[in-house]
Structures are given as structure tokens and as C-alpha cells.
């Protein structure tokens, strides 16, 4: 009599566990397969069983399903991120990001999380690449987000120490120091194509926030381009982004940066009185 309900729990047809869409596939499969190799549920107080909740998922389970669906890494991260078996896929994805100059914060954070759960599988090369990619994503705080997940003793080793120093320089606007340091650690940063351009874009962004008119020397220092290359760069910017070259008092060249609301406060839209639409929608029922 003690387990009236257990027959009901265990022997209801599995078909009653509907798989709504492909999305639920992993989880419902994993929980069914969540190897309760000892059926049925006995009294908890009496028997202690190892609960292996670890979902054993991976592409090898695919053959059971009539349709073969291959999931992209993004889908995996969205649907089944707490699964140690996707670790190789995520590592490959990092390499893919590096090669194709794309970036996905969610996938990288997922990988770092898995490394946190299983520190013996941590690969310093992959982590270094993730951090370089995060640096390139500035001004977003991605680099700090990644650091939160990397254990302290790992952060004390190279190349992470260098990367942290580089990040510090970038965060505090120390571009000259940054480029010096980057030159010294070329092997780390040049492993990822597009690094230089990304940092230069960030430098330009910070300068645009701060200056209306910036002296040439400051700009040169920030983007680490001098001489003729700088002239070419400036020409490009003049054409594409509306920069204006002027002559300053000291005789040096002044670059007037495009006007945005950050360096031209008069352009700042007075959003004080604007009421967003979704706030108004809340009172539609009252107004009608």
C-alpha cells in the first residue's frame, strides 16, 4: 500500500510526455534517460540511489529520432547550455569566431562556465582567445564578464596577466602604454585577426565621446598610426565619417570629430519629457 501512486508515476505511457518542438528534445530526452536505472521510486528513507541527473546528450542520440536535426552552436547554447558534452563544440566555435572575425558573447560565457565546472578541461589557449575577442568588443564590459568566470590562480599565469594589463590600459584611456605593451606581446594579440582594427575603432569611439576637436598627436597616439599611414587613415575618415581637418593655434593639425550628442551637448535630445510608448499603452484601457 505504501506506493499507491508509484505505478502511476512510472508506467504512464511515455507518449504523455509531449515534445512540443525540437527545442524540448534535449531536455525531455535527457530527463527520461536520466538514468534511473532502478525503477520504481521506492521509499526515500529506505533506499538511497545515485541520482544521475547528468544528461547524456550529444549528437549520438540523434539516430533514435526519425528526423535528423543538426543544431548550431547558438541553438545549443540557447536550449541546453548546462551540458558538459557540448564543450568540444564550443571550443570549435571559438576557433571559428577567431577565423571568421565574428563574435558571440553567450557562447563564450557558456564555455567559460563549463570550464569553471570542470577546471581540468580548461584550455589556456582557448581562454586566451576568448579574452582577446572580448577586448575587441570594447567598450562593452565583456572582458570583465569573462574574468569573473576564470579562477584566480589561472589569472596569475601568462598570457592572462598580460591581457589583464592590456585591458587595464584600455579602460583607463592609456593608449600609448597599451600599444607599447601590445607590441611586446605580439604573439598573443596577433593570433586573432582584426584585433588592431577593433582597438582602433574603440579608441576613435572614446575620442569622439571626449573631444570636439582633437589634436593630431593625441589621435596618432591613440590609434598607433603615424605619418603617411595616418594621413591616409584621416582621408578615409573624412570621406566616410565626416571628419574635418583644420589648422590649430599651435600649428599642428586639429581634427574636428563628427558631432554626436556626447561631445555636443546641445545636440542631446531632451528626453526628459518624452514618455515612452509602452508606458502610454498601459493606460490605454483607462483612456478608452
Amino acid at each position, binding site marked *: 500500500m*505504501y*506506493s499507491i*501512486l*508509484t505505478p*502511476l*508515476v512510472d508506467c*504512464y505511457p511515455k507518449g*504523455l510526455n509531449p515534445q512540443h518542438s525540437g*527545442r*524540448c528534445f534535449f*531536455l525531455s530526452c535527457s*530527463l527520461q534517460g536520466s538514468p534511473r536505472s532502478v525503477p520504481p*521510486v521506492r521509499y*526515500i*528513507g529506505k533506499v*538511497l*540511489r*545515485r*541520482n544521475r*541527473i*547528468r*544528461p547524456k546528450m550529444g549528437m549520438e542520440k540523434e539516430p533514435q529520432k526519425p528526423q535528423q536535426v543538426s543544431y548550431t552552436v547558438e541553438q545549443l547554447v540557447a536550449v*541546453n*547550455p*548546462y551540458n*558538459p558534452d557540448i564543450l568540444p563544440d564550443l571550443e570549435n566555435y571559438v576557433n571559428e569566431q577567431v577565423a571568421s572575425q565574428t563574435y558571440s558573447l*553567450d557562447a563564450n*560565457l557558456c564555455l567559460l*562556465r563549463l570550464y*569553471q*565546472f570542470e577546471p581540468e578541461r580548461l584550455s589556456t589557449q582557448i581562454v586566451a582567445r576568448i579574452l582577446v575577442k572580448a577586448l575587441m568588443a570594447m*567598450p562593452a564590459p565583456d572582458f*570583465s*564578464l569573462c574574468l*569573473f*568566470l576564470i579562477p*584566480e590562480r589561472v589569472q596569475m599565469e601568462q598570457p592572462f596577466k598580460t591581457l589583464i594589463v592590456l585591458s587595464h590600459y584600455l*579602460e*583607463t*584611456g592609456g593608449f600609448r602604454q597599451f600599444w607599447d605593451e601590445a607590441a611586446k606581446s605580439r604573439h598573443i594579440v596577433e593570433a586573432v585577426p582584426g584585433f588592431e582594427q577593433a582597438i582602433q575603432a574603440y579608441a576613435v569611439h*572614446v*575620442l569622439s*565621446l*571626449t*573631444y*570636439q*576637436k*582633437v*589634436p593630431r598627436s593625441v589621435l596618432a597616439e591613440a590609434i598607433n598610426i603615424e605619418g603617411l599611414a595616418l594621413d591616409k587613415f584621416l582621408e578615409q575618415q573624412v570621406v566616410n565619417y565626416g571628419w574635418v581637418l583644420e589648422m590649430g593655434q599651435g600649428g599642428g593639425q586639429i581634427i574636428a570629430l563628427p558631432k554626436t550628442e*556626447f*561631445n*555636443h*551637448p546641445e545636440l542631446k535630445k531632451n528626453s*526628459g*519629457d518624452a*514618455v515612452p510608448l509602452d*508606458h502610454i499603452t*498601459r*493606460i490605454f484601457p*483607462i483612456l478608452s
Partner: protein
Amino acid sequence: MTESSDITGGVRCLYILNIIFAIIFGLLALLLGSTLLTLGSSCSVPLFWCYEIAAWGLVILYGGTAFFLRRKAAVIIDEGDQGSRNLGLEMLEANTLAVAVTPDVERRVTFKSWMGSSLLSSDDEDELDTFVDAPYRTNASANRQRVYSESRAMAANYEYDEAAGHYDDQAAALRQQEVGYDPNFVPDSVKSFVVHLYRHIREKNVYEIHQMYETSFQTLSERLFKDTPWPSVDAVVHYVDNDHVFCLLYREMWFRHLYARLSPTLKQRIDSWDNYCSLFQVVLHGVVNMQLPNQWLWDMVDEFVYQFQSFCQYRAKMKNKTEQEIALLRQFDQAWNVYGVLNFLQALVEKSAIIQILEQEKQGIEQFTATDGYDYSGGSNVLKVLGYFSMIGLLRVHCLLGDYHTGLKCLHPIDISQQGVYTSVIGSHIATIYHYGFASLMLRRYVDGIREFNKILLYIYKTKQYHQKSPQYEQILKKNEQMYALLAICLSFCPQMKLVDEAVNAQLREKYGEKMGKLQRYDDEAYGDKLSRRQRYADEAFGIYDELFSYACPKFITPSAPSFDEPLVNYNQDAYRLQLKLFLSEVRQQELLVGARTFLKVYSTISLGKLANYLDVDESTLRMTLMTYKHKTHAVDSDGKIISNADVDFYIDDDMIRVVNSKPVKRYGDFFLRQIVKLEGVINDVDRIKVESAN
């Protein structure tokens, strides 16, 4: 409660005996009494004594049956119109007990649990009082607060490292033995509690369940189980038809009580994990047909995450572990495995399809928030509401791991700018906003953090008094203090005082006014050794940030299992130290900004050279500082846009700094919107009164 008239066999028997004895006694009294009276003084002694003995004997018999009858009446099990006894809390066919949604039921079901356990006594209280010797009604206030105190509340001065002996298995086991705990002894009040709770769950009386859960459970714990666990589930199981699901629920409460009052042994932790597995699997796989109050469902998720956190802390203290414990840990490495915890929460979210439900609610197709998650069409609210609260659980776990971005993503389907099911339970409201605010702080989205902290602190300020009797009162106060500390940090990074309400501001000044002043202090004297003074102030500020952060941060965990081969060390502080270190490096980067801000507030135009002079730095360092200022005050929000949260803004024109005078803008739109909604509410109330009085 006693509205039914059917009674079981044993009681019927007693009842009949009672009547028989009463009749015999009455007849005897009449006959013999009248005989004696007529005989007068000539009655024989044996006859007299016969009468005496018979009379007293019957008195005893009558009294005895009456006494046992009253006792038995307490365990009346209502069978009512239920045919088969096999219908437990889990049924596959349509619920024959479906309660029609009358206004009465609606009143019960929409009971706002934040009202706390008001002493609107339910019948339970009366019932319990009849059995307990001391005929007092427990005053719920002071005693109940201690229920969750020790193990939950962090000490006032941050005590991250608890005494090594606290988690010692043997000590804990000893303590339990000392008090003479007998797991199989079931006091009558517990018996009745269990029986009534079971009945209410079967009948889906959410209001009654809530009363029993909040009030009766705490009362009994306080009165009978101060230092010992509740009776084991095996002892109570036969009072509840051996119902499997009820046993899981009872065990869940059993473990929660254990964690709150005593310190659990490793074996008990593993058993608790096992119980949660079974419970969640039943909810996920079976068709659970019961409605539980939101408070209970939130407590389940909350306790689940809390026990996970506690286990990780426990496991990380390897230094004083015995051989036995290490062997057990090795054997049950799946217990409280981080994958398991995360996957369960994720599964609850997925299986309940709560995200789709919330989406559809926005379009008006579904009703979820409007009914507070309860199901009026005879279904069960358990899976949906557990799924909803699991999103908050995921946010919490991710914050404990240090992954703030993903935590916020998990919370994304819930719109925290509006009321929702998460506000129906004060515990979940506070937990949500606390973790949201903390994650925003670490993501440098200070404005978001300030706004949310402001709202919740104002809410707590206004409604604190209603929760004084609730068992979570201490927790609420503790979180309140922590959130003030976090608000102080956010405001120091981003001094936008206009985002903060008056009441909250006043409280903040009272608690942290002095500290906040020190954080913004740059150089208040014109003479003397400026550099060393500034350095001193900076170091002082650094120390204050350290203190505030340590006080207010969650208890971070290291999720990975320890390697048992390396020498045993305590590494429970590692995660916390890492987060603190990274936070303080952020503080260091923003150190120079204090000086810049001080001067920019004073000047409207100043040349770079002059400002460099005042700050005692060279021009290039000044340029760096100003760029840092701009970078830090222009945060990237969740959509990837840049927003400025600077209070003092400027721009540089070659080598002149021009400071922007921004007038504070009065926001009328928000004010009008709020008043419109309020007026509408008042008109509705007035209309309702008119309608009611018209009836």
C-alpha cells in the same frame, strides 16, 4: 472543518458506548435511588454499597469514554463522497473534486500572501489547542523570527568563514542524539496537522493550505521541535494513505526545518538532494493535480538554491573532513552537482512553457499574472509557478557563479518594471531585485541598479510593518541593509541623486551618509601635503568599498568538485575573493575620477594645463583621466546602446575643457501617468462600493 457528519468506526463505537453508559447510569440512578429512598433507613448495607459502587463505576466508565471520544474526534478523516481511496494528489483523469469557482473560492485563492500570517485564526489553531497541555495561543511574533535565523542570516559584521566546528558531522549527529530525538514518535498535534494538511491539499483549499503552512507549521516547530527534527516521514505516512507526493512535500518541509534549526550532516544533505530530485521529477513527469500557495512554491525553489549554495560551501571546507565524509563525498558525487541543479531549474522553465505563457499574456491570450498564477479551471498551478520561480532561481545561481550576463538573460522574460507573480511573495520580490541590482552593478549599469534598488527599498519601507509577524522578517531586514549598501556603492560610482526617492535618501543618509561622504572626498584643504592626503583619502575610500562590497555581496561558490588527491585545504573563500578583487580593480580604475569630478563641478571652462596643475598630474595623464571618465560614465546597456549616466558632463575643444550646464529636467510624463492610473483605481473602488451597497 467538522461540517461532516460521518465518522469512522472507532469513533462510532466509542460514541455508542458512551450513550449506553449514560442510559444505564440514568436508569440506575432512578431505580436504585428511588429504592433507597423508599426503603429509607431500613435499607440493607450491602444494597447501599452495591448502589455506591455501581454508581461510581458508571461515572468512571462514562467519563472515560467521553474523554477518549474527544481525542478521537481530532483525527476524523473525512471520506465524504470520495469513492475510491486510490485518488491521491496525483490523478490522471479529470478532477472529480474540481471546486467550482465561486466568489468564495476566489476569495480563498486570491489571498494575497504578502499579508503575512495574520492571526485570523483558522480552525487549525483551535484544534491544536485542545491537545496541548498548556492552553495558550502561541504569540507568533518574536518566536517565529528565529526560525530561519541562524543558518540564513549573515552576521552583522561580515563573517564569511564560519567556525569549523559548525559543519562538523559528528557534532551535529551528537547534538541530535543528545536531545533524545525519536524519529518515530508522533505527537498528536503533528498527527492532526499532517492529516488536515493532506486533506486540504486534496481538496485544493489553497487558503487553508497557506494558513497551515505559514502558521501551524511554525507554531508546532516552535513549540515541539525547537532543537529536534520533525518526526520522520515513515512515522506519519500511514496517516495520509501512504500518499507518495505528500510524503515528498513533507520531507521537503522536514529538511527545511532541519537546515534552519540544526546543522545537517553530510548524509542528510544527500538525502535532501534525493528528495528534491524525486519531487521535481514527479512535477516534471507526472501530472500533478494540486494547487499550492505561491509562498510554498517559492520557498521550494529558494530552499533548493540555498541548500546547493550551502553544500558547495560545506564541500569546499576540506581541511577538517574525516575519512568517512570524504568517502561519502566521493561516492555520491552526483549529489548537488552543479549540472544537476542547473538542469533541473532549466527543465522546470522549459517544461512549464512559462516563457511562452508570459509572451502570450502580453498579447492577451493567456491569463497568468492576473490570477497570480493560480488555475481556476481545475488544473494545477504547481508546474507553471515553479517554472516561473525557477527563472529567478537561475538568476540567483548564475550570480553565485559570477556569470551576471547570463543571469540577467534568464530573468529577461519577467518584466520587472511591472507587477507580476514575483511580487506576490515578498521573498521572491526581494530576491529578484537584489540579484538584478547586484548583476547590474557588476555590469557597470549603475542607473539600472539605482532605479531598481530605489523602488524595492521604498516598497520595503512602506510595507515593513505588515511582515513583522512573518518568519521571513529577519531575512527581509537583512536584505534591506544589504541593498542600502549596494545603493551606496552605485551612487558613489554614479552620483545621480535625482533617481532616488526622498524616503530612501533619508534612510541612506542615516546609514551610510558618513561613508558616502568619505568616498567622494578628494581634497578638502588647500594647504599641507596634498599628495599624501589625497592618497590617504583614496586608500580610505578603497577600504570602505571593500567593506561595503563584502557585506552586501551574495555568498559566491566554487561549483567544481574538490580533487581529493591534493592536500586538503579550505577553498570556500576563493570565489568570493576573486569577485572582490575584480570589483576593487574597477574601483582603482575609477579612483582618479573623484578628483576630476570635484573640479569640473566648480568650473565652466578650464584649460587642460590649469586643471592638470590643480590635480598635480601631467597633461597626458589628465587626458587619460578625462577619457576614463567619459568611458566609465557611458555604459553599454542591454541593447548595446551607449547611454550617459554622468552628472557632470564636458567636452574638450583642443585644449579647453568646457563643462556642460545641464538643467535638471522635470519629468511630468511619468507623474501624470501614475496619477491617471491611481485615479482609475480609486474610481473603480468607489464603483464597487456603490454596487455592493446596492445589493
